[in-house]
Structures are given as C-alpha cells and as structure tokens.
C-alpha cells in the first residue's frame, strides 16, 4: 500500500492498527499462554463462526438452492411474459433439507438413532464417491511411475537419468513393501527391503521438512514486514496525532 492516500481514512488506520495488535496477541503465545492471546483466540473463533454461517448461505444455500427453488432467477417482463419456466423438480430439494434436520436428533436421548440415519447416508455417499476419486487420482500416478530403467539419449547411455529412474522405482517398491502388514518376513533380504523403505521415507520427510522451512519463514517475514511497515506508520500517526 502506498503511504499518503491510504492513511487519509480513519477506518483504514483502525483496520491496520487492529491487525497489528491481533498479530502481536497471537505471537504472545510464544512466550506462554496468556489472557491477551486468550481474548483474541475467542474473538477469532467468534468471527470465523459468524463468517462461516453467512458464507454458507451466500455462496451455497442462496444461489444453488433457494434461487432455483423459489424461481428467483426467472425474469418477468412488463407484459407479464417471462423468460424460462419454473422447474418444479427443484421442489425435490426440500427432501434433503428436511432429512438433514435429523442431525439435530443427536441432542435427544430417546431418538438419537434418527440422527444415525442421516449420518449413514452421508457415510454411504462418501463411500460411493470414493470409487471415482480413487481411480482418477491413482491411475495417472500409476502410469507416470512406468519409467524406463535404462535411458538412451542422443548422446548414448544417459547414466544420470538411468540412475534417477532406477532409484525412483526402487524407492517406490521398497516403500510400498514396507506397508505390508500381513506377510511374515521370512528372509533377511525381505526384512532389509522393509528397512530400506522406512529409511527412504525418512529421507522424503526430511526433504519435505527442509523445503517447508522456506515457506513458513516467508510467511513470518510477511507479518514482520507488515508490523515494521504499515503498522508502525499507523501507530506513529496515532501517537503523534497527525
């Protein structure tokens, strides 16, 4: 944000100021849990809850359900003709709506089993959906694992790529092998494959950890930039009363 124009407005300054205070409140947790953090923790949960309710209404319930259900997207012209016809099929939305209300029976001692009906339907639905999800996710991954172990390029045998591909396949097999639960490992070799699988996983986790350090530090820098930049200026403005 540029300097002069932005600070002309009281609300903008207030927004920046409270942003810095909120940031410091969260950071204060680093020293220890304290009332300052606790207060903003509760504010955060409250705001998120309020936002969540309206966002559900605004982004889903209203446009996807209520608008077609009440035919609000139909245009009525001054001569009382209209574009499009109301589709009564949308009345069927009332069924999942009423059925979804069964969730609230978990508060009843006697009828809490009714809530299990709607829970069952949602479990069943996610079970049914899993088939498509599984294949759309796994098949491309499977196909892209078919790497040639030996690679010939225009300059002959490409040792580097051959090694990389072989190592890739080796890692894949070892780690998959590690996750067998039900086969007794009868020979020492098989046991070693499993150990190799575990070691290779540790390399993977370490590498992910290392590359995440940069992303997390970068987020922290962004906050510090804000505190040392916009927030400091807004604070000065407040203190000096300019």
């Amino acid at each position, binding site marked *: *944000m*540029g300097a002069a124009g932005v600070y002309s407005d009281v609300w903008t300054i207030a927004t920046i100021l409270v942003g810095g205070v909120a940031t410091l409140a969260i950071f204060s947790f*680093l*020293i220890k849990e304290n009332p300052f953090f606790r207060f903003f923790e509760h504010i955060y949960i409250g705001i998120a809850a309020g936002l969540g309710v309206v966002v559900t209404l605004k982004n889903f319930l209203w446009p996807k359900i209520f608008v077609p259900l009440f035919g609000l997207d139909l245009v009525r012209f001054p001569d009382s003709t209209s574009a499009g016809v109301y589709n009564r099929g949308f009345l069927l939305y009332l069924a999942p709506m009423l059925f979804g209300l069964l969730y609230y029976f978990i508060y009843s001692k006697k009828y809490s089993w009714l809530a299990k009906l709607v829970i069952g339907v949602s479990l069943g639905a996610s079970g049914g959906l899993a088939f498509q999800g599984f294949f759309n996710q796994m098949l491309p991954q499977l196909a892209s694992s078919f790497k040639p172990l030996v690679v010939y390029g225009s300059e002959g045998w490409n040792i580097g790529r051959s090694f990389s591909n072989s190592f890739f396949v080796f890692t894949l097999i070892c780690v998959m092998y590690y996750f067998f639960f039900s086969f007794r490992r009868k020979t020492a070799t098989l046991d070693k494959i499993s150990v190799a699988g575990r070691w290779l996983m540790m390399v993977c986790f370490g590498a992910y950890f290392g*590359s*995440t*350090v*940069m*992303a997390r*530090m*970068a*987020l*922290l*820098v*962004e906050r*510090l*930039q804000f505190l*040392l930049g916009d927030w400091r200026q807004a604070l000065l403005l407040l203190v000096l009363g300019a």
Partner: protein
Amino acid sequence: MKQWDLTHIDRRVIYLLVLLALSIPLALEYALKPARMEAAERAFAVVQDLEAKPGELAFMSLDFGPNSLAENKPQAEVVLEHLLRKRIPVALYSQYYLAEPFLESIPKTVVGRLEKEILGHFWEYGRDWVNLGYRPGGSVMLQNIAKSADLAELFKTDARGNNLRELPIFKGVAGLESVKLLAEFTSLVGGLDSFLQFFQKKGYRPFFIHGCTSITIPQAFIYLDSGQLKGLLEGIAGAAWYSLLLERAYPQRRPDAAQIINTGLGVAHMVVIALVLLGNVGFLIRGRN
C-alpha cells in the same frame, strides 16, 4: 542455575533468534549478495531480449494470495519493473480472487519507485500498464484467450471500468499473437499446468516465464527442463538474483525488498542449521561423558 546445555536450549531463545534473523535485515534495509540462480538468469535474458512493436504487449498473471505473498510479490515486482524499464506495455490479470488487490498495488509501487529514480520520466495507466482484474473461469478463460482474435473484445473493460478500446495500450492489439511474453506467478501447481496447456495456439506460443514458491520448485523444474518454460524465478532467491541483475543493468537502481527479504530468509535458515548442528554437538559431547 543449571549448566549451559546445548541439547536443551530454551525454545523462547530459539524464537528470539529467528525473530532477530528475520527482522534485523528488514529494519536496517540490509542486503547480502544473493546466490547466482541460473533459471532466473534465463528469465532475465528473455525479458532483456524482448522487443515490443506497437500493438504488442506482455501479460502478467498474478495468481497468489496472502499465503505466498512474501515469495511471489517480490518476483512480480522485479519482472514488472524490468518490463516497464524496457517500455514494454504490461497487462496484469489474475485467476485467483485473493490476488485482486495486488493487481493495483504492485504496479503502483513499482511505478512510484521508477518515477522517483528516473526523474522526468512517467509511466501512465492505460498506456504503459493496465489492470484487467480478476477473471473467474480458470482454464476455460485461458482457452478463450487463446481462441480470441481480439483481446479487447474478449476482456471488454479493465478493472476500473474503462473500455479497453479507448485505452492506448490496446491499440492494435489483436489475439494471442500480440502477447509477446507471459509471466505467471503462483504458489499453486494447478494454475501453472493450465497456463502451459491452454495459453497457446497453433503455431504460436508466447515466451513463458514463471515465478514459483520454494515448495513448488521441483514441479516447475520439470517444465523448465522440457523447454516449456523459458525462465523461472525460484522462490525469493530467484527474485533476489533477478533484482541484482537489474542493478547491474541499471546501475543507479537501489536494492529492493527482494534482496532484503532474501537476506533475512537466508540468515534465518542459517540460524536453524546452526541450531541443529549445536544440538548435535551437545548430544555427542553428552554421549561421550
């Protein structure tokens, strides 16, 4: 008081060290010389060799939100600055709604800095750069861009509501072939994929340079190796090296946020590495006793 034990440094001391490592370079605006990044050098060369005739422009897609701001924003700033210095008109656009405010704020900061540095020269909205705003629709939108024979017709207005036909920057601009360069900055791999797939038409593909975050470097390198990307800014380090190259090409330029942030992040990494090493030294000493 117990003896200094390297295996049990209080966590608050560690937090303090991280805080100091990151904020001292920021507060003092101090920058160390960044490391050479070859992929960023290639990106620099692409922009350096770029020439735009009237009716040609560069496209920048800023597809990042607050979460990757610290890495993607300096990248976007240095590339935009380079383009503006070379007087190549730039159209900024985004596929990610959280990026919307940056489409205005980033060019404004860059232009402000340039005008302060090179007195008497001005960069005007509508002539040197334009904000096309956030455009929903993802890859469908990209396909439409590729198919369009008249981009002004496709986009119609800029984010401020101006008719694109009335802006000098769009004078003579036809379809995709008028776009000489595409620079995309994102932390999302999916965004890059769809640009590679759809931002081209038969027989023509603009030069494509990309700015990624440290996490997505491995995926981005696959496309750099295959030649689909002509240059790559790898996280903040890439932006810092690019910034240094700019300084070499334009000696009166002052160090910017990219190099300062890069210094802070580098020092913070060193702190972490040093702590790990110290912990192990303490661990080994204790083991021996």
